[in-house]
């Protein structure tokens, strides 16, 4: 068990591939949620996973987190072929996930939620003091606006809960952090802190997967943008390359250059025309 501060950098050297998913597929009854998905994540890299509602982003993340083991395909993590059958497996590998639905226990307080499943102990009993102290340190680093860590999660606002979920993914020593729409409910300052955090994670050589619908955030922090559309890969963009703009990514997300976003833009500035 590692404390939130002073964690050594991951064992993988920067720019080595941490994760390689190949041919991942997953269906729910008659719905083929994922078909033949490939995804690579390198150490020290932020990969943004984007796509429309229902494109399969959360399903892919859950396959990686051990929530829904995939039907087919292979996962290579830190150079080894692995099977991730349970959330405990994912955590032992060093994959930490912030789920879109947060997955917090409403009846437990903030400290219990942060350390759930990996509580610190002294002599076999819970080390409440140690956990509370480190919780405060961690929450301050995220500029969390949480009045008390001893109140039940149910009494927090949506953004405060999201901050707790993010803070939780940082406990332990994950090699890879997956954030499923982490800033959806956050205030301006907290969003900036999360983006800063993502950049700090990259500097320390962690692999980061960020799911977001906010193109500005994606372009601000991501090194690579992977687009999913209707459960399939629909393009990879290297941020910074010429020709990679919000518009080109949106075109891949919606599957057409003539889409709702461009039409709306055209209505607003008729002189620029409908073409991106």
């Amino acid at each position: 068990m590692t404390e939130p501060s002073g964690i050594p950098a991951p064992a993988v050297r920067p720019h080595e591939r941490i994760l390689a998913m190949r041919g991942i597929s997953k269906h729910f009854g008659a719905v083929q949620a994922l078909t033949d998905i490939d995804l690579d994540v390198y150490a020290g890299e932020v990969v943004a996973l984007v796509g429309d509602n229902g494109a399969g982003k959360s399903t892919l993340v859950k396959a990686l987190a051990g929530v829904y083991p995939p039907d087919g395909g292979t996962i290579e993590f830190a150079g080894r072929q692995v099977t991730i059958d349970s959330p405990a497996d994912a955590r032992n590998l060093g994959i930490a996930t912030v789920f879109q639905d947060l997955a917090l226990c409403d009846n437990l307080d903030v400290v219990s939620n942060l350390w759930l499943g990996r509580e610190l102990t002294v002599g076999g009993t819970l080390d409440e003091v140690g956990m509370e102290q480190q919780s405060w340190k961690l929450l301050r680093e995220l500029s969390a606006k949480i009045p008390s860590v001893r109140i039940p999660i149910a009494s927090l606002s949506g953004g405060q809960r999201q901050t707790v979920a993010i803070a939780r993914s940082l406990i332990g020593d994950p090699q890879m952090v997956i954030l499923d729409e982490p800033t959806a409910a956050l205030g301006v300052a907290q969003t900036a802190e999360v983006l800063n955090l993502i950049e700090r994670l990259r500097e320390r050589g962690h692999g980061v997967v960020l799911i977001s619908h906010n193109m500005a955030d994606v372009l601000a922090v991501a090194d690579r943008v992977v687009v999913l559309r209707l459960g399939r890969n629909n393009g990879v963009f290297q941020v910074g390359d010429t020709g990679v703009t919000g518009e080109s990514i949106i075109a891949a997300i919606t599957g057409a250059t003539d889409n709702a976003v461009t039409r709306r833009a055209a209505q607003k500035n008729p002189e620029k025309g409908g073409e991106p």
Partner: protein
Amino acid sequence: MSIPNSVPSQDAAAGSLAADRQDERLVQHHGPGGALRAFVARIRGGDLGALPVVVGLAIIWAVFQALNPVFLSSTNLVNLSMQCAAVGTIALGIVLVLLLGEIDLSVGSVSGLSSAVLAVGFVQWGWPLLGAVLAALALGAVIGLFYGLLYTRFGVPSFVITLAGLLGFLGLQLLVLGRTGSINIPFDSWIVQFAQQMFLPEWLSYLLVLLTVLAYGWQGWTHARRRAAANLSRLSTTSILLRCAALLVVLAVPTWYLNRTRGVGLMFLLFLVLVVAMNFLLTRTRWGRAVFAVGGNVEAARRAGIRVRRVYLSVFILTSTFAALGGLLAASRLAAANQSSGGGDTNLNAIAAAVIGGTSLFGGRGSAYSALLGIVVIQSISSGLTLLSLDASVRYMITGAVLLLAVVIDSLSRRSRQAAGRG
């Protein structure tokens, strides 16, 4: 995770305030008056804890004492304490399943089966007494394991599994007892002696009270010191001493009162020890934290890497084992096992005790102490009505009404908790 670049700006400004007291929105409660205000705020928020049951118990005792002055006599209270142990132990198991949001309806049958195994094994088959006791407990554990496997492998609702168990193990109990139907356990066996005749010597009872208070105070003090060292708010020495004094009164006065006649029965002491031990396991260990997490949100617990199946298995096993132990205590107190052992109202009293004591039916909320408080309420009603020579019909109706009241309080406080944001 180290996030070196961030300089938490609040820290500098916060000055000497403890790390958990810096948010300006936090209402500060200082001194004893403040503690009282914090308490009132908590109750209003629907976090009732043990309050309704303590108030209810006071009312029940006052009414019965007014109707019959024997009720609060030392003799009657000693009896009351001895009556609590068996069903109270079963209720302790019920608290555990309720914390998971599940139920075990078969605890009565399992306790009856365990009584039968004890009597038949020891008296008819000539097993050593300890062997019969262990066999009965092991049988309880196996039954719990069976429930747990059915629940975790096939996802059958615990309500249905244990309803089947209620019938099945009642049948097994009748089978074990055979044609005799009723078997007496010799009075001079240690288990009957333990349940009927053994009481703490007076000096030892006070010594135990003193040691308990000292342990409580020591633990509170070291905890406060560690919090202070970690720059967290801590209880002042005065309030720790006040709490110790309160605990001393709560323990010493009843002990003194019971000691005026027979004293504190060993069987009752065993029950108290079990309650305190379960409370420790539930609040101070990773296992206990996992139980509350699973009861609050199974999926979140699973995603946090908790081995949810093991938690269910362990709890079902403990519940059935406590039921078996309760059956052993009941049989030894009666010095007999028969076809109605564990029958009648055993099941419902155990479940009612857990709920009346304040453990929520909705899972994730409750305490080991609710078994103690709840069973004292139920046995008080039963004992009071017996003293008034009212028969079972009235007792059932009153216990039913109290149970209904407890469930209504549980549901209402759940609603006001949601309104006040306490989950």
